[in-house]
């Protein structure tokens, strides 16, 4: 029985040795054939024995490449989107600056561009903060406007920023004039934020009339568009009447304003 087992083991070993010898011979044969034949052998192996592993490897690599490409394209897409957005911004800015150029030609004063960096807290906007101050030669009382219309005036100046009192501030009074009938009045804001113009009862002021600055206050130059009369209301005194005004420049959507570098023509003092 032991002899039989030994014979089986020898046969098994011999079988292994024969196969080993054949494989070694095959390896040596592959080493010594010509290079062009070696290339044929490699091609043959890829298309037969290693077809499945190679196709799996290729698929995984392709998947990896797709994943990388996807990531790259996403980044590229985000970058391009940003560039498109920036371009849109530049187009809008360009339009604004073109309008400003046209606007500036009407005035003898230099105009300064400032960014809005904050506003007062609370339900009604009465003050905004701009990023220009005394270091930019901004002084108290300078008119602030946009290409749509008047915004307000500089009310406080700090070295690097300033506060702008808006027309919607209840403490603000602006002398205005009707572009059509030249009827004069004083525009102010009620406590609820509604803008009104106070004119004499017999003044020719109808809904749709555009109001511009009169230039009488000493702060704003004459002719800056301010608002449009949108409704009328007779005062009980029958001397004065109040008309609703819709401002041409809504301050909620403001990002930047222009400041006219103009000192006040005169100051009206209350009291002594």
């Amino acid at each position, binding site marked *: 029985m032991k002899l039989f087992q030994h014979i089986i083991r020898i046969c098994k070993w011999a079988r292994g040795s024969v196969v080993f010898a054949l494989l070694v011979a095959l390896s040596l044969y*592959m080493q010594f054939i010509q290079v062009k034949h070696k290339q044929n052998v490699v091609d043959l192996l890829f298309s037969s024995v290693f077809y499945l592993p190679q196709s799996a490897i290729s698929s995984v690599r392709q998947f990896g490449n797709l994943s990388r490409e996807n990531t790259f394209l996403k980044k590229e897409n985000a970058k391009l989107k940003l560039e498109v957005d920036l371009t849109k911004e530049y187009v809008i800015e360009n339009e604004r600056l073109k309008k400003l150029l046209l606007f500036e030609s009407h005035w003898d004063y230099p105009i300064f561009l400032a960014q809005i960096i904050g506003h007062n807290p609370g339900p009604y906007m009465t003050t905004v903060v701009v990023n220009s101050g005394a270091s930019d030669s901004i002084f108290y009382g300078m008119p602030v406007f946009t290409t749509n219309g008047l915004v307000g005036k500089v009310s406080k100046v700090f070295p690097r920023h300033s506060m702008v009192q808006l027309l919607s501030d209840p403490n603000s009074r602006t002398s205005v004039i009707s572009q059509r009938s030249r009827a004069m009045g004083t525009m102010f804001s009620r406590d609820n934020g509604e803008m009104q113009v106070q004119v004499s009862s017999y003044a020719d002021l109808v809904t749709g009339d555009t109001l511009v600055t009169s230039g009488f206050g000493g702060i704003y130059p004459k002719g800056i568009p301010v608002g449009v009369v949108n409704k009328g209301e007779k005062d009980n005194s029958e001397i004065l009447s109040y008309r609703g005004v819709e401002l041409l420049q809504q301050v909620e959507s403001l990002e930047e304003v222009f400041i006219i570098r103009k000192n006040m023509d005169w100051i009206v003092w209350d009291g002594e």
Partner: protein
Amino acid sequence: MLKLIFYSFLFFVAAILQTLIVPHIEIMNAQPSFLLILTIITALRQGSLAGCFMGFMSGLLCDVYAPVEWLGAFSLAYCTVGFAVGQIEESFINLNLFPKIIVLALADFLKDAIYFFSIGRTTVDISGAIVSISVPNAIYTVILGAICFYFFSPKTERKIEMYKPGL
């Protein structure tokens, strides 16, 4: 038949690991050889015949990705290693984890020695290549091989125990 499918699957997995994963887990130019680990595991579990055949296939896979001038060098190296380790398996049936690791390390050096000897007739400085390439690769392969042996070990032991009475 089931064994053939099982080892073919292992070869398939090792081929993917070797080709796709190894370049990403390279440490200071040292790369492990999953194909060598598979060859050693096959040889230790199934004997020299299976070992040398698995080694030949693994070597052939390395050959097709190596420069075409050296075709056959890896086949010879892996096949020889598979056969030699299979002989060890047949002589010393019950190998523990530590001797297996020693066998793997020696097998790695033997494989590289045969490979460099095969291609040495061209341009490569064999001793320098063994020191600069083989040693780091062998260390990395041995570490990963030890983990693989650890996971394959209980099954191997049970298998040996099952076959012992039949011998």
